[in-house]
């Protein structure tokens, strides 16, 4: 197992480098804004008669970085604060730190994305196996076509279609927000029921827009595994159908993890659409609103956290893959 810590270290280093690059990118991006908001706020405060230092501190509080001084000192100051997880203040809701603003949204988004991933993974994998085993028949082709179609349907189209069907034409589900405000929060029946009912449509939107790619990947990987020698060998050694099925399924799952890692960025990206369509208060909506209101520190914080979430998810997917595939865990060349 000596290789695992090595692999983990590699991941962490890459993750830190990536976050640093993204942070630098947004730092300079905000600098390029038409009418640099940070400087604008500084001048505005000075005009209102605040002393330059006072104005600098106030702006620094709001944006989290020094409005004056050389770009380099601002940059280093910004990074220093970043290390302390201090991403500045949100200008939209005064006094609330940007990071807390985002974190409140984060748990909703992650909850939704998780539900979406699990649902789409399950539906996609099962249908993929069926499409593979019955590939010469009609059901096989039908599943493949639906798979590739749903895979190509954008998330917000799926969201809007679900909304029109389930809230307008046949109003079964509540339309917006994540929970019914009237119900008092707490660990009680109605609160959870309203939570779930509000979450079903968005999670369904996720699942329906993602299961297609899992279906297609699972189908092609099952077909390729069925062609492997060990499947025929298992049959010739008289292994029972159940054991053979488990052999095939486990080997077929591997490519799914690589796809899984690829689609995570896609999923978090999609969060913006689905949350906006359902008006579900997650990170995505926070990002959109922060851009709408020119609240750059929150935008910066949200973007960083979304990227961090994607990176963490990728690391998890890779570790899961290593856990399943011994070839990666215990590499090494064959003996004489």
């Amino acid at each position: 197992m000596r290789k695992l810590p090595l692999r983990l270290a590699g991941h962490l280093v890459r993750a830190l480098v990536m976050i640093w690059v993204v942070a630098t990118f947004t730092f300079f991006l905000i600098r390029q804004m038409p009418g640099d908001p940070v400087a604008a706020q500084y001048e505005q405060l000075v005009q209102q008669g605040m002393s330059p230092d006072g104005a600098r501190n106030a702006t620094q509080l709001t944006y989290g970085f020094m409005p004056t001084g050389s770009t380099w000192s601002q940059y280093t100051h910004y990074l220093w604060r970043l290390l302390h997880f201090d991403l500045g203040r949100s200008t939209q809701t005064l006094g609330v730190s940007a990071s807390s603003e985002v974190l409140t949204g984060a748990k909703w988004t992650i909850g939704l994305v998780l539900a979406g991933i699990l649902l789409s993974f399950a539906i996609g994998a099962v249908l993929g196996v069926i499409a593979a085993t019955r590939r010469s028949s009609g059901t096989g082709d039908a599943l493949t076509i639906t798979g590739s179609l749903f895979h190509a349907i954008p998330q917000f189209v799926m969201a809007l279609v679900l909304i029109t069907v389930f809230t307008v034409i046949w109003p079964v589900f509540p339309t917006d927000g994540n929970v019914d405000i009237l119900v008092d929060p707490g660990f009680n029946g109605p609160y959870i029921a309203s939570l779930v009912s509000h979450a079903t449509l968005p999670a369904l939107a996720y699942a329906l827009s993602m299961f297609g790619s899992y279906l297609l990947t699972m189908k092609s990987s099952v077909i390729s595994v069925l062609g492997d020698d060990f499947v025929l060998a298992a049959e010739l050694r008289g292994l029972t159908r159940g054991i053979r099925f488990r052999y095939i399924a486990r080997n077929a799952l591997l490519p799914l993890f690589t796809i899984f890692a690829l689609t995570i960025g896609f999923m978090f990206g999609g969060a913006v659409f689905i949350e906006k369509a359902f008006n579900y208060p997650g990170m995505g909506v926070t990002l959109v609103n922060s851009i709408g209101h020119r609240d750059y520190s929150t935008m910066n914080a949200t973007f960083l956290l979304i990227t961090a979430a994607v990176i963490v998810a990728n690391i998890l997917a890779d570790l899961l893959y290593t856990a399943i595939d011994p070839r990666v865990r215990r590499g090494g060349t064959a003996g004489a």
Partner: protein
Amino acid sequence: MTDPDSSGAAIEARGIVKSFRARGDVLAGHTVHALRGVDFSIPAGGAASFIGESGCGKTTLGRILAGLESFDSGSLSLGGVPLAELSPRKRSPHFRRVQMIHQDPYSALNPTRTVDAILRDPLALRARQTGRPRAWIDARAREVLDLVGLDPGYVLPRFPHQLSGGMRQRVVIARALTVDPAALVADEAVSMIDVSLRLGILNLLRELRSTLGVSVLFITHDVATARYIGADGELYVIYRGQIIEHGPTETVVADPVHPYTQCLLSAIPVLHGIEQPGADRLTPTEPLDESQPEDGCLFAARCPFATEKCRAERPELGHLGDTVQEHACFYPQRRSVVATPVAGS
């Protein structure tokens, strides 16, 4: 010995050393000595065969002679021109005259191009170099296909997947001929071809030697094929990167003196009924294992006759015991290991 600057070109190699840093974590940090100072020479239009177990370095040597692999030290000259000192750009025109025939005909041809396109590009290059008109390209394409016994009309418009394994290997040889090579390095060139067709390819290689004066280097683990193709040439037996026996093919096959060569020849299946097995057939005491000791004779760990001296010193290639062929063994001993035909079969 024909003079070096005839259309063919003699190949001279002295003290070729090549080692790889193994990447697998089992051998991490451990270098694999592929070649440990190999001397080799072949006259223009000559024949040489290399035999040995897989992983003994024979393919690496073939790739070095064809210029597809660099080597750490030693000298290599083609038609009298020393290549080690030349810059890669200057070296490549020379190495172009040594063409490699790969083992797998299915991966040696680009599946998306017709045979015509495959032959046309190298011929266009050749036409530019030798100042020949464009019309020569089509004519030469048909010529090389005739040379390898294929019907140009049938083969030219087809894609590789429309040809059989044997026909594909012939197209590979035809492609090699487009650059008028001095030497062909055939690495296990027939092991993936059906038994009844193998001889056709081997005969083709023999004919090319006589008609075009091309020298043929045959790399294989199948001794009988090596003997058939290089009957009037030299046979080199390689073990863990070192040549341990070398001499005229007939002598080494009929009268081997190094225990490893004897093990190789003993392992050849005997066609009972029309052949009787050699009296003292040998088998190595251990399977081949990379981690076997490096000091002393490389074969000591597996040699049935190894002594303390064998484990301590490494014998050099020489004629100890006034043998016709060179060998690297302190105790060369004639043994009848090869199956001989039963009278009257």
